């Protein structure tokens, strides 16, 4: 739930999603769900070599299980806070 809530707080921000098949897609985070499926709008080119043939796609829905990384704008994330939250969650899971 932590990262679901975390991504929800980033809706509207521009992100780059790198898939497990090495393709990278840049777009605006429109929505995310509990499985971390990602819906992006206004897709654009990031790396031409890794770019899939889907220019001017308005919306795209990415299955959460194929996402390798989500690149985030550094100034939108409080990494210290996120680290603390992750540690707290790990401690909660250990007790359960």
């Amino acid at each position, binding site marked *: 739930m*932590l990262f679901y809530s*975390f991504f929800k707080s980033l809706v509207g921000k521009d992100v780059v999603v790198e898939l497990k098949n090495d393709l990278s897609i840049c777009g605006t985070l429109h929505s995310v769900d*509990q499985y971390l499926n990602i819906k992006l709008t206004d897709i654009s080119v990031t790396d031409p070599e890794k770019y*899939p043939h889907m220019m001017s796609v308005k*919306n795209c*829905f990415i299955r959460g299980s*194929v996402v390798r990384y989500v690149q985030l704008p550094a100034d939108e994330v409080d990494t210290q806070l996120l680290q603390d*939250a992750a540690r707290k969650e790990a401690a909660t899971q250990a007790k359960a």
Partner: protein
Amino acid sequence: MVVMSSYREPSGEIRHQESNTRAFVNERELGSGTLYIAESILSWKSSTSEDGFSLEYPHISLHAVSKDFSNFPHECLYIMLDADVDNTAEAGDDDEEEDNLTIVRFVPADKGILQQLFEALKDCQLLHPDPNDSISEDDFEGEDTLAALNNITIQRISTDNGNGHDHSDDAMDAEPGQFDDAE
């Protein structure tokens, strides 16, 4: 791993059925037929031949409505699969240069239906979560995680009793000194 199988009759509820839909696999046209977006499986059956295929949702990496004519001359439902169906043989060095993916495009006669196809596919994707994901372990016992992040901020500036235990966590109902080390 079977990413694209031969046509299987869709069972269960069909979220969307669209006839007069052309199918393209990696730019190769298979003809016109009927697309079934069912809760169990996505299937396409040609109306002119015995051709057909089915796709399983866990292997659909990404889908979108594509309207870029510079790459493909029709508005279509664009689907990316997580393996290359045309290159199933492990060819060693060749694999590193080939994309490990398949692009399937569906071109309905009714272009206005594309958004509904997108939504139907998205809804069916939600019914097939990755079995490796362990969502239930992340339960914060109902506590909103963003509120939990706020709690951490509060804990940083609150004073504790010197043992590292602060008493701002109401859910715990801990008595003062309950968790102190034994004397």
